[in-house]
């Protein structure tokens, strides 16, 4: 088996080439450090070649962990060829890394990518000259090139001696580029778009509007699919029950499986899947377009003030989709301390699993039936999100002044040219790499959670279920922070997935033994009010939804990504303390206002 590794600067289309050659659907993106884990796969038409996709790097003298991966790999020498991918538009800069690698090994080939884009900008590359100067196999390709495969495969086995020692790599790169790259009437494109998207008065409003549009599409777009999915999945509950009874499974176990495990599973999937399936492709669309690096650029100064960097704005936005996925994406932040800050504060933005709770409470308690109700609702939801973002800033600031202080790290970000997103690729990638993974996670987490919840609600100790014992135990404390025992227990049992907090709560109020669906918000509101809910309870519940411990997957992701239990514990404790304190304050202020 031959091993061929793809190396190169960030944003040069390595992952796209990898996907085309191997037929895999690895995620590709437009911000540096996108290749999160090292992907490897056999080449479709050459099963004897294993291809490895190394993380993008600017240099072999690594400054971040991720860049070290590439350097270490090349140092190890355990490969048959390094294919260095270069961007035809800025070949000169790309050649610096190429020359650095060529100093280490002669088992090199060069792939010059984005030839179509270069052509449209009147950049021509003299491949013959380039080949003479570098003395390694070279191919020129572009993403649309159907024959790209063959061109690359044909050259994989070619061997050359490479180049001699170079004194000054940067100078040499410039010299080669001057010799081999012909630029006629070179113009920077899209300057007008950048003037608007990064302009003093336009940048922030456009960002907010786009974010609002993404939310709106995600929320309204997932309403119907969620309802269908829920109907579809719940229609299996009875057949499953009948089947199990049919094969003589004890009734106790039958209801544990159907009303416990299956119902929670169906619930989580119906609520979680549609918004995920809409949000992630939308996010990837802006990523591929090249807009996201501009967002990081626009917001860098704001985040720098609280000790972080602009890239945190992107991981924060990703958190609206899924906090666990967002924490994994924190790898794009090269400074280790800024990265930890981003991971520990990510949970302050509500994920797709928490939005439905917020929306339900807003519709029940804060908007009447007027023409403008949906606008009021949107304003309240936006304010809540802003509260979460404010908390992100406050906690980031505190962390950067205390536990994570002192690092004066350099921040640079490359603003790639705007590129037409490859829609089909995006849909494929987000379905296979994100949505299916989420589905898998929903299954492995919700099934045991469903069983535990069912056991708690149906196991009696002194004539009261364990669930009710727990509710009574926590009731006094919960009242101090404006909630009640049922709500707090719902949050605790919702640790595996935030989607099930509301149904557990309803189950608790009704004293039922399994999760209960409440289609009708009026009836739900009556139920809540009969159980002592006031406007204060609603506010505290919403605040606590934004600020409490992250779900179990998120906690595990923090542990995995930071490599230490300590940060996972902090990731759990920090938002919890924030939520408890804010809710306590609200409760005190509310009680004082009642006295006046």
């Amino acid at each position, binding site marked *: 088996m031959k091993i061929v590794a793809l190396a190169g600067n960030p944003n040069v289309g390595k992952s796209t080439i990898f996907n085309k050659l191997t037929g895999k659907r690895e995620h590709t993106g437009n911000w540096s450090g996108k290749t999160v884990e090292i992907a490897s796969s056999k080449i479709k038409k050459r099963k004897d070649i294993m291809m490895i996709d190394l993380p993008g790097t*600017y*240099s072999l*003298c690594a*400054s971040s962990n991720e860049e070290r991966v590439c350097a270490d790999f090349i140092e190890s020498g355990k490969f048959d060829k390094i294919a260095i991918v270069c*961007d035809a*538009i*800025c*070949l*000169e*800069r790309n050649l*610096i890394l190429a020359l650095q690698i060529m100093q280490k090994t002669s088992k090199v080939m060069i792939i010059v990518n984005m030839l179509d884009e270069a052509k449209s900008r009147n950049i021509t590359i003299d491949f013959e000259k380039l080949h003479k100067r570098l003395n390694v196999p070279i191919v020129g390709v572009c993403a649309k090139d159907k024959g790209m495969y063959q061109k690359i495969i044909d050259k994989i086995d070619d061997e050359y001696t490479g180049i001699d020692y170079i004194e000054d790599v*940067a*100078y040499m*790169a*410039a010299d080669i*580029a001057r010799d081999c790259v012909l630029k006629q009437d070179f113009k*920077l494109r899209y*300057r007008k778009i*950048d*003037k608007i998207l*990064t*302009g*003093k*008065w*336009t*940048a*922030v409003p456009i960002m907010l509007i786009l974010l609002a549009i993404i939310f709106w599409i995600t929320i309204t777009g997932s309403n119907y699919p969620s309802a269908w999915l829920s109907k579809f999945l719940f229609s299996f509950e009875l057949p499953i029950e009948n089947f199990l009874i049919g094969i003589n499974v004890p009734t106790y176990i039958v209801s544990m499986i159907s009303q416990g495990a299956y119902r929670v599973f169906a619930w989580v999937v119906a609520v979680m899947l549609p918004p995920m399936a809409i949000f992630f492709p939308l996010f990837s669309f802006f990523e591929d377009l090249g807009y996201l690096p501009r967002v990081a*650029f*626009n917001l*860098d*100064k*704001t985040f*720098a003030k609280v000790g972080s960097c*602009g890239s945190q704005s992107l991981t924060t936005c990703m958190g609206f989709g899924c906090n666990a996925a967002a924490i994994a994406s924190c790898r794009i932040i090269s400074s280790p301390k800024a990265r930890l800050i981003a991971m520990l504060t990510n949970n302050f933005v509500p994920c797709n699993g928490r939005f439905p709770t917020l929306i339900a409470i807003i519709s029940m308690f804060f908007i009447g039936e007027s023409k403008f109700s949906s606008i009021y609702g949107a304003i309240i939801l936006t304010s809540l999100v802003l509260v979460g973002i404010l908390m992100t800033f406050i906690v980031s600031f505190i962390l950067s002044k205390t536990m994570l202080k002192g690092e004066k790290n*350099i*921040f*640079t*970000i*490359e*603003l*790639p*040219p705007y590129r037409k997103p490859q829609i089909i690729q995006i849909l494929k990638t987000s379905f296979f790499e994100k949505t299916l993974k989420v589905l898998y996670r929903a299954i492995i987490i919700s099934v045991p959670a469903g069983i535990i919840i069912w056991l708690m609600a149906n196991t009696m100790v002194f004539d009261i279920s364990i669930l009710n014992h727990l509710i009574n135990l926590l009731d006094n404390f919960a009242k101090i922070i404006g909630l009640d025992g049922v709500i707090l227990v719902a949050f605790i049992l919702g640790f595996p997935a935030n989607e099930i907090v509301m149904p557990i709560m309803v189950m608790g109020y009704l004293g039922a033994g399994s999760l209960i669906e409440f289609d009708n918000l009026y009836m739900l509101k009556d139920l809540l009010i009969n159980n002592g809910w006031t406007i204060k309870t609603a506010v505290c519940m919403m605040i606590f939804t934004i600020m409490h411990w992250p779900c179990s997957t998120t906690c595990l992701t923090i542990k995995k990504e930071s490599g230490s239990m300590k940060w996972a514990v902090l990731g759990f404790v920090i938002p919890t303390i924030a939520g408890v304190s804010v809710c306590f304050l609200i409760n005190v202020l509310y009680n004082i206002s009642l006295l006046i």
Partner: protein
Amino acid sequence: MKMCDLMNGQRAIVLNNSDNRRLRDLGLTKGLVIKCLFSGPFGDPTAYLIRDAIIAIRNRDAKTILVEVLEGKE
């Protein structure tokens, strides 16, 4: 003058190598001709054309690079 003091649209030649590894890795080295493109909405960071790529650098870091403005059109 310092790199961070360049005006939008000005071209300049870099006079020193940065102490910072990362800036050198991006190809910002002595003798290179760069162009100041535009600043973010809050004035910082600033985007420069460095070896045909647009790279944003914080003013704090650009302060460490000395440049000499090139007059005339490119």
